[in-house]
């Protein structure tokens, strides 16, 4: 007879895997890394499911595990990011322009250190306060604030560089 707890876990995975996979993509920037990240986080969650299922919000537990894994395990590793080819020439199409802007932000985000990217995701996607982010990542709120500030400054710099390149093209 299947373990009732694991039936519950399977149902949780079935319902939340798409959202968690997307979250992994936002954190890591590539579908391949997102797959690795969400798989590892859910395996660890499954192994501890008897504890996790009693928590108010299992999905938050998984997301926190993903953010910590991302910072701890993915840091310092050299990664290659597949980047889509940019269009050959600027096209006056607002839909395409939005896609283009999104691609630039993606590239800029991938240029950030893992911890900084995690801080930005937790702050601007999850809407966490700096104190909460500090708790998730194991650092001080001041560190979160400075990481976010540096990350935003870096993004501005990268995006301005892209803007200048397109402007001169």
């Amino acid at each position, binding site marked *: 007879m299947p373990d009732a707890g694991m039936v519950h876990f399977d149902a949780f995975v*079935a319902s939340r895997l798409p959202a968690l*996979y997307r979250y992994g993509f936002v954190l890591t920037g590539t579908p391949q890394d997102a797959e690795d990240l*969400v798989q590892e986080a859910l395996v660890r969650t499954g192994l501890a499911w008897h504890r996790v299922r009693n928590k108010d919000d299992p999905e938050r537990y998984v997301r926190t*595990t993903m953010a910590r894994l991302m910072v701890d395990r993915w840091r*310092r590793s050299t990664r290659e990011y597949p980047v889509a080819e940019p269009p050959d020439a600027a096209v006056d199409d607002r839909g395409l322009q939005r896609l283009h802007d999104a691609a630039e932000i993606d590239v800029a985000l991938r240029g950030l250190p893992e911890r900084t990217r995690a801080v930005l995701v937790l702050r601007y996607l999850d809407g966490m306060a700096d104190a909460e982010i500090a708790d998730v990542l194991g650092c001080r*709120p001041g560190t979160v604030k400075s990481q976010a500030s540096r990350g935003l400054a870096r993004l501005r710099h990268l*995006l301005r560089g892209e803007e200048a390149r397109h402007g001169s093209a």
Partner: protein
Amino acid sequence: MDQLERTLGDHLSRAGADLRPPAGLADRITTAIVHRRRRRRVVATAAVAAALVLVVPAVGWVSGRPGPSGTGAAAGPSAASALPPEIAALVTDVTTYDLDRVDSVGPTGVVVGGPEQELSVDTPGAPTRTLARSPHAWAAAAGQDIVVWADHRDGDRHDFQVMCAGGTREPRQVGDRGVLKRDNPIQVSDDTLLWTDEAGQAWYAEGCAGAPRKIDARGHAVAFAFPDAFLVDDTTGELRQVDVRTGTQQLVPGAPRFDVPTGGQVFAATTTHLAWASEGRLSVLDRRAVVVNTVPGGVTATARLTAGDRFVVCASDGRPETTVYDTATGRVSGLRMPALAAADRFAWREGDTTWRVAVLRPT
């Protein structure tokens, strides 16, 4: 919130909206869970079998301790088959643990590590003991009878505090000044703790209950082989050794000046050797002969460096590459797995979660 922050929030909430999980991912997760559970059961079953076998006088156990039970499963030297022959030849007995990670191995074979977001201690012959359920517990080190670690416990006041657990007693905080967040932040040798506080002052304490005492020398603590504490001067880069009992200090003969502020340099010490890894090289100082041997290659700046009676072990963080320096022969071995050394113990990982801890033949 400015325009960039709003744009970023919008972008992140839309990113990957059209992505779907790869087919079969949910099945792979289920299979991986079953696989890891099965592996844990195998180890646990082996532990029971080993305990039964060890009712008979413990042939093959040279440490004089009773055979292990709990999570540790005993095995003969054949369990060292994954090791290079020059290391396997020194292995006399092996205990196997199933752990997500191992942070430290103590001189008595105590293993400190655990599953995600926990810190536990496994001792041969005793059940697993959980020391902390905290996502922030790190930098654990094991002594003869104590385990020390850093944990984030008092909110904004400090980053991390020094925690200590002795025997079966409850963990307690040592000192109240926090611990500097650097490589090798807490050292333990002969159950004496050594650490550097957030102001850069080095301290030591005898056991978990000992009163913290300042070390009257400049620099932050990087290694400890009782009674000698090793400190790198934060202004000159000099490496100094201080006898914590007497306070006498001297520059370490044969040691270079290190870059300051230090970063990416890790140290380990025994009573006979002092080792440091930096800039892709592992250097081992024979403290008696004052001779430095340098091993090129295979050492990253973020390595974990440990030293035992026989081996200095440099495990590259984030990569399964380990350099093992044999202090008796000068021979260097490469392992494709993480490993650690302490006193006469040598630990290595096989697969994802199988850790083996061996007793080595006396040098």
